[in-house]
């Protein structure tokens, strides 16, 4: 998808509504502005088949956050989405990268939608945020070595 085109259309339509909104008194509920919409839509990848964000936080915000939540604390119900904050399983960078690559229980795998670099970026992000403070980082090469044989074509 052409992001620039998409954003131009959105900016234009916001301009039109913005213009209309100026005549009567300010609407009760302010709509998100063009920049906020821009940021929100940047969460979608440019390629429908793969995630195109490259840095760990952006990847977290568009994948993991769905279940592990904005604060990395997960959530409980009939079962739970486990917390990433303070989770001792994150001690092993290999374990965490392996879970992202292959999935775990009900969690879908992301190995087919992220490159080695992306898996490394999100692994390193998780292990250095949400109160986690592990200094060892995983490299893309290490992720590549973790990939199951079926993943490599």
């Amino acid at each position: 998808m052409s992001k620039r085109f998409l954003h131009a259309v959105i900016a234009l339509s916001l301009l039109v509504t913005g213009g209309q909104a100026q005549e009567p008194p300010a609407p009760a509920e302010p709509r998100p502005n063009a920049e906020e919409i821009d940021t929100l839509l940047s969460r979608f990848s440019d390629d429908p088949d793969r995630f195109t964000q490259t840095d760990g936080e952006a990847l977290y915000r568009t994948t993991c956050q769905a279940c592990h939540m904005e604060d990395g604390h997960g959530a409980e119900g009939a079962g739970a989405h486990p917390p990433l904050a303070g989770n001792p399983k994150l001690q092993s960078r290999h374990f965490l990268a392996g879970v992202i690559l292959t999935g775990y229980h009900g969690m879908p795998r992301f190995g087919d939608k992220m490159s080695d670099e992306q898996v490394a970026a999100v692994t390193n992000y998780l292990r250095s945020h949400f109160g986690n403070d592990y200094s060892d980082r995983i490299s893309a090469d290490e992720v590549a070595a973790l990939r199951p044989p079926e993943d490599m074509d």
Partner: protein
Amino acid sequence: MAMTLNPTRRQLLAMIGQVAGAAAMYQAMTSLGFAAESGYSGEPDLQGPRESRRVLILGAGIAGMAAAYEMRRAGYEVKILEYQDRHGGRCLTIRGGDRYTEMGGHEITCDFEGDGYLNPGPWRLPVHHRAVFDYCRKLGVRVHPFIIKNNRAYLHSPQAFGGQPQRIGNVEKDMRGHVSELLAKSLHQGALDDALTAEDRERLLEGLKEWGVLDSRYAYRASDDLGGVRGWDIRPGGGLMPDARPSQPVDLSALLQSGLWEQLFNFNSYTFEPPMFEPEGGMDAITDAFAREVSDVIQLNARVTRIAQSDDGVTVTYEDGGRGGTVREESADWCICTIPLSVLVQLDVDCSDAMRKAIAAVPYASAFKVALEFRRRFWEQDDNIMGGISYTDLPLVQIAYPNYGFLSDGPAVLQAAYDTATAGRSFTYSWSTMTPQERIDAALALGRQIHPQYDAEFMSGTSWVWHRVSWSLGCYGQWTEDLRDEHYKTLCEIDNRLVLAGEHCSHIPAWLEGSLLSALDAIKRLDQRENA
């Protein structure tokens, strides 16, 4: 798998194998089973127990309620434990006034003022899903046509035709016309003489003329004949209205470059063959109908924590009143467990190691929906779209128009965004990370590219994200061929006193029919075991 691995790597892989449950987990996820034929052969013919027998059913979704309904008819004593404060499971309908707190604490509101609604889960019924139709007939559920393909609805890509949506019928007829012209050209050039007799060649050429609406020189061009097939720029009128003018076909290259042709493939599958149907007033009409039969045996707000079994019975521990509630036990001769595997894997279950591995092996798919209410039916009034679905390359993927309340004044609801992980797209994950308000903002920002009327007519919106549903932790069992080979049979087999049922125990995942067939098959085998 025949690879040489150094020891370090083998260790790592073994570790992953342990946590993931199986090597098959690694396999590419493809859409499987979605076009499967329903194996329904009429209502189950159960013998019933020879002496008093109690069956405990976990989950009051369609599988659990159908199992209860049929087993009680056959003479078993049944009881259902349900985690939620409602029956119906993933078959539900959201209407104005409804509130739902998602995992993570965000509240989903629905403030629809009209009679429109959102079906967050199942929302349309293929006619070959015969079990669903049979129960609708028996339980008095009224259905009406669901317009799966509307030639007036749109195909859209922000990069194609300056972002202008194209009518489905036009794209389809232009592709047919161009392909017919090309085939006729090949036939005239003798390119297919090896494949066809001279007589068949002539018949095919004649047929292509009609099929593709080609002119006398086998060219696909605008003509009055084509106007009668593809439509008109100026429609034939009455009296002294202007002369009709046929519409202009789009060039083949432009069509191929646009990608819209590929969107047409959405209509190819057997599952989505017209006509499809939907219950009047919302999908929960189906589960409400089952509940009318079995609500007296459903205990709500019961959170199962443990399934223990011995050779002659099963004991289920649950928290009465939900998490942290009073701990109670229920004993029975048999247990039918329809709890989604995503939840079941986190419970304490007595079963074989193989079944435990199967329960842990199946990932749960991402899926979401956003619905928006508008002041008027601009899609009908301005765009001549009466029901059906428009498709787009935008992350909203599809806009579904209501197939009820046609021509009415006042508010109406669009299903403004919907996708699942089945097609392999990444968008559904991103939608699932958004707050309820952000989903509405995104659906508006994207959808106005197809329907600019959004801005002036929008009233309110609602949404659903299956990975944030506390009782399913995802939408449906995302099987792969390899996972099925390794785990499916084990998952469905009776394990001593326990049998699993639900869409995850079927070859029609995510569909009501899969849940029903799974339940019917499970109770048939239990009944046989009881009478063996």
